[in-house]
């Protein structure tokens, strides 16, 4: 009844529906537009670094178009790569990062497994606590940590301040909570029946972790590895505070402390050093992304 009245009362509105493919085409066009915009925005600084690294000091300070290289030179690269100091920073950074990633994974993967699967007294509180730890800004922690390590040196005579390996004790305080949290999430997404099946099949907790959980949660493991590596490679504040001797410095601090001499900024070499320093994470990302396959759990259970 009422439907009839409405039909008579007003003109019928025709709604035009776009075809699926036309909607999709426009969605794609907008996506590309914004992706290109974003790419330009984020690639401009590295591009600027690249062209600056190819210039001589004279050309950098000359008042000409800064977005073009008129006399490209590799002298900055030659000087840096020929300097033992720079290679020392690189080596320190590499050792710190590799050890920190290893330590982080060795702690956070079993921790995440325990927190997500073994329901023991206080496990939920502990899991939340792990996350809350990460919320404390690192800039608040460096003074107490410095005091701690200084005191440790006084009490035991073990000198950790101004040694590159002090960072192996410090970085995990940043990486372990976050990586544990990531892994808890990944492990939680693995169906409960999978570990029950493994337990019935005769697997111990450790075997369940190594033979079922780690392979199944590999994408999460890689994400956590990338995070831990990035944090330890790019960290600036802690190495600036804890290390001072040039042979103990890591790359980010080393570039700044040795290439800025008083008020003289050696821009060409700073840019080159930073660019070379950014290479390892780039290579690692490119390499690991191949393994970062989503949907590895497909087929485990009815999906």
């Amino acid at each position, binding site marked *: 009844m009422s439907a009839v009245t409405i039909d008579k009362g007003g003109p019928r509105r025709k709604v035009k529906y776009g075809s699926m493919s036309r909607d999709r085409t426009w969605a794609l066009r907008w996506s590309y537009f914004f992706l290109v915009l974003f790419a330009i925005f984020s690639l401009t600084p590295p591009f600027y670094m690249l062209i600056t690294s190819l210039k001589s000091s004279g050309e950098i300070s000359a008042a000409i178009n800064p977005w073009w290289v008129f006399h490209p030179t590799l002298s900055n690269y030659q000087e840096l790569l020929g300097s033992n100091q720079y290679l020392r920073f690189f080596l320190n950074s590499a050792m710190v990062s590799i050890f920190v990633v290893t330590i982080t994974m060795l702690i956070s993967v079993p921790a995440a497994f325990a927190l997500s699967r073994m329901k023991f007294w206080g496990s939920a509180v502990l899991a939340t606590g792990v996350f809350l730890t990460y919320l404390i800004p690192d800039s608040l922690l460096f003074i107490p940590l410095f005091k701690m390590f200084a005191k440790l040196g006084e009490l035991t005579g073990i000198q950790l301040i101004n040694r590159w390996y002090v960072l192996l004790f410090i970085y995990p305080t940043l990486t372990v909570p976050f990586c544990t949290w990531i892994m808890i999430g990944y492990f939680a997404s693995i169906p409960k*029946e999978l570990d029950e*099946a493994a337990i*019935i*099949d005769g697997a111990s907790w450790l*075997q369940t972790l190594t033979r079922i959980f780690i392979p199944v949660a590999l994408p999460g493991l890689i994400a956590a590895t990338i995070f831990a590596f990035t944090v330890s490679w790019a960290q600036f504040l802690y190495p600036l505070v804890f290390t001072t001797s040039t042979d103990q410095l890591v790359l980010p601090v080393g570039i700044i402390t040795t290439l800025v001499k008083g008020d003289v900024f050696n821009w060409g070499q700073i840019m080159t050093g930073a660019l070379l320093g950014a290479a390892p994470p780039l290579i690692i990302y490119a390499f690991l992304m191949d393994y970062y396959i989503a949907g590895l759990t497909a087929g*485990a259970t009815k999906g």
Partner: protein
Amino acid sequence: MAEVNLRKVVKRYDDVEAVRGIDLDIADEEFVVLVGPSGCGKSTTLRMIAGLEDISDGDIMIGGDVVNDVPPKDRDIAMVFQNYALYPHMTVAENMSFGLRLKHYPKAEIKARVTEAARLLDITDLIDRKPKQLSGGQRQRVAMGRAIVRNPKVFLFDEPLSNLDAKLRVQMRIEIKKVHQKVRTTTVYVTHDQVEAMTLADRVVVMNKGRIEQIGTPGELYHNPATRFVAGFIGSPAMNFMPCRLEQAGDKLSIRLTDRLTFPVPPIRTARYKNIPRNEPLLLGVRPEHITEARPHAEPGVEAFDAVLDVTEPMGMETLVYFTLEGAQICGRVNPNAAAHDGAPMRLAVDLNNMHLLNEANGVVLGRP
């Protein structure tokens, strides 16, 4: 292979009792199905047998040994899960052999067992595939294969067919029965589907609210239910229940349904009901297949009556008819050729030789042999 015994097994979650002291004896090579509505404690019971849940009280024995504190891996059981629970990063063969590899069986024996199980389940061609390349039915076969290769004392199935579509479910049901006929391993199977329970089981255990309502062969449960719950749960469409009273005139017993409708109790049932107190509120339980169209030659114990049909459902091989009697909706099954029409009167007949009388207050079926 072994028998499984449960003695006053209780499972408590904080202050909720999920399983309230059940006793169950499962014989060697027997196929027992635990059936009941969701939350009845059937899955919890199975998981306690598996060792995936601790038991709060009582004893569980497998092969005569109390296994209350034995971890799952040492109970020598295999379990098939509702969602298959295959290891996604392993091939079918690796999935099936995982348990054997953990126990360091010789490679040749692992291969032999996997090949044999694959042949039994008809998945030989799939042996090198990953689970994600398999259909639901194939995945469930692999899950069963994983159980079979272990050659355990007991198979535990937790609603293994619930994720499959109706057609595949029927097919896999037959497969499971075939496998059990071949390997004869003691099996405990949990389902909420009474058809699965009836078709697969040597004995069915009907559970409700954490207790066992009745244990019996499918035939016993169907023809001789102990309680209203069992009578209503087993069989589809469900048994009809009509409020009634038992009356006596001389030697003859009769059932009064309404002021105008009484049925005489047939002679073969009179002995059963002679000790039931008269004039107490009772329920008459009649299965739909015992309410049919009235036939010209009345058989003994079959009583005709008139009803006005509310709804008819033609099923092809039969037509289900629904009518109301004293506020209770009753279902009958009539011949598809009988003239049954929505809203029309119809002469029906009830076969009282298969009737049940229940105590309305507590739902107990009265006068069971």
